[in-house]
């Protein structure tokens, strides 16, 4: 794959051409689909590595955290929680920005640059394009998150000498799976909304709304009269509860790790919602005119 300024061009001879050759039957189809998806995903990862977004956000996060961590409060050198909280807040903001903006531009830019036609002319289905874009964004965000969380872990250890590996791993994986839902939602949005900017705005509002209000919708619903109560409670059950994945308070205040079965249940919950959004995106993209 090569890129000129702002354009994504897929080099089929290098990236996708060998896929599926020499194989036949069901295994061949699955293998081919998997290879197609991972090849398209690889392109997205390379795109994120080339762009400056991640580096700028990481450097900003690091600088702000280190500067705030160097403030002296009453000559107490081991105060750490406020630094951790700030660092995690910046990580959450940065990762959301990276995830939403990266996912929102994938398909619209392919259409705009007319690279979608040659892509679909090859043995790549529309569903594979959607899944490949999702996989690439998710993988790229995962890599970015890993760097952020390693920084967080090292920062905390330099202040209080503790290495909460299990808790940090849980926080990282929960965060990553939550972003999987957000990316799937954004990919679906990129097929519904006219421009990436509107998709970005609507997704941000929706995600922030859930993160801030999701946990409390049921309490608000219980105070309402019928039929508003049933309506709001239904919304509460239907929306993906992204706030579940926000375990910053547990990490900041040194709580013990979440039971692993519960953690696994949360990951499965995210997989279900991401799957639903991706299914919607695949169906919509299949019916949509690419011209």
């Amino acid at each position, binding site marked *: 794959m090569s890129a000129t300024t702002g354009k994504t061009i897929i080099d089929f001879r290098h990236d996708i051409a060998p896929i599926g050759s020499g194989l036949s039957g069901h295994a061949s189809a699955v293998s081919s689909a998997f290879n197609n998806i991972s090849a398209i995903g690889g392109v997205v990862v390379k795109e994120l590595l080339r762009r400056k977004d991640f580096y700028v956000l990481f450097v900003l996060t690091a600088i702000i955290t280190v500067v705030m961590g160097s403030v002296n409060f*009453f000559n107490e050198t081991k105060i*750490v*929680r406020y630094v951790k909280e700030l660092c995690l807040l910046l990580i959450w903001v940065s990762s959301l920005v990276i995830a939403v903006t990266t996912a929102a531009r994938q398909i619209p830019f392919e259409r705009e640059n007319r690279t979608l036609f040659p892509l679909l002319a090859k043995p790549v289905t529309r569903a594979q394009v959607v899944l490949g874009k999702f996989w690439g964004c998710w993988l790229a965000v995962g890599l970015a998150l890993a760097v952020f969380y390693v920084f967080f872990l090292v920062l905390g250890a330099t202040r209080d000498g503790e290495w909460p590996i299990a808790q940090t791993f849980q926080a990282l994986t929960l965060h990553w799976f939550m972003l999987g839902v957000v990316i799937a939602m954004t990919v679906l949005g990129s097929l519904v909304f006219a421009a990436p900017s509107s998709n970005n705005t609507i997704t941000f509002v929706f995600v922030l709304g859930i993160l801030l209000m999701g*946990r409390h919708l049921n*309490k608000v619903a219980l105070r309402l009269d019928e039929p508003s109560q049933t309506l709001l409670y239904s919304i509460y059950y239907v929306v993906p509860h992204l706030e579940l994945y926000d*375990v910053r*308070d547990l990490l900041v*205040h040194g*709580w013990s790790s979440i039971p692993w079965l519960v953690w696994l249940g949360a990951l499965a919950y995210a997989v279900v919602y991401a799957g639903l959004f991706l299914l919607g995106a695949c169906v919509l993209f299949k019916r949509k005119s690419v011209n």
Partner: protein
Amino acid sequence: MPRGRAPFIGGLLLALGLGLVTWLEPWYQSWSGSRTGSANLLSVALGDSRRLFAKHFYVKADAYFHSGYYPSIFDQRPDEDKLHMAANAGSGNHQEDLPARGQPNDWIDRFGRYFHPSVHTHLGDAKCNDPHHAHEHVHGPDCKHDDNDHDAHDGAKAETREQRELLPWLKLAATLDPDRPETYITAAYWLRSHLDKVAEAEQFIREGLQHIPGEPELLFELGRIYRENHKDINRSRRIWQASLSQFRKTRTTEETEDLLLYAQMLINLAKLEEEAGDYAKAADYLKDLLVVSPNKAALQKSIDALTAKAAPQK
């Protein structure tokens, strides 16, 4: 528009702008809403909204005191002037602990409690998100945890010095709203009583007194530092007397918080005089308290005992 007119219109607008500046600038400087008089950058940038932020950070410190376990705005929250973190800090307020969290409303609520602090603890307690460790839990034969789990938690309490985590938020709250005495008192209490930072506590209280000169609560806390930490009885007496005098000048005992502060001052002064052997003076302080105290019978007994002790002195 013809080309020749553009410089003319431009010049006209420039002259109008300069003329308006000469009229507006003196008015703005003398305008009561102008923030140019303040040397404080935060005050200039945030105006009066800094008080809201200060309150938020003060409440944030209380959330830290509960290790992140804190009711949201949709739950029953304690009054921000009566936070549990300020208990025993000598600010004269009633302090309330957080209400116990009720049963989950649904399966998402139940499931969600694993992902945020949902057990009531205080800084220094060992934490796990198991409901077994809730304060209201009574250990029974059916419990899966051993008794020594709780012992270990209690043992950890004295050593951790985790209370230091409150300090950044209290300092920030005091910076944003320097006229709020509770912030100084609460920070000073934790500094001197749990973190062995008496000098820093005294310095912070004095900082508060620079912003709110003669504030009785701050003077009372300063007196406590001299009494309890420096063991300087004479100085603490003088400071408490100044605090009492300031209280009588500026406050009444109509409000419960003020009444409590007044009672604390008089009781501490009475105790001080009793320890110094001046029983008559101690009785005088208690007589002042008798006027406003709801528990007159018990107080009268103490006064009688002190008067009896004072009689042989005469």
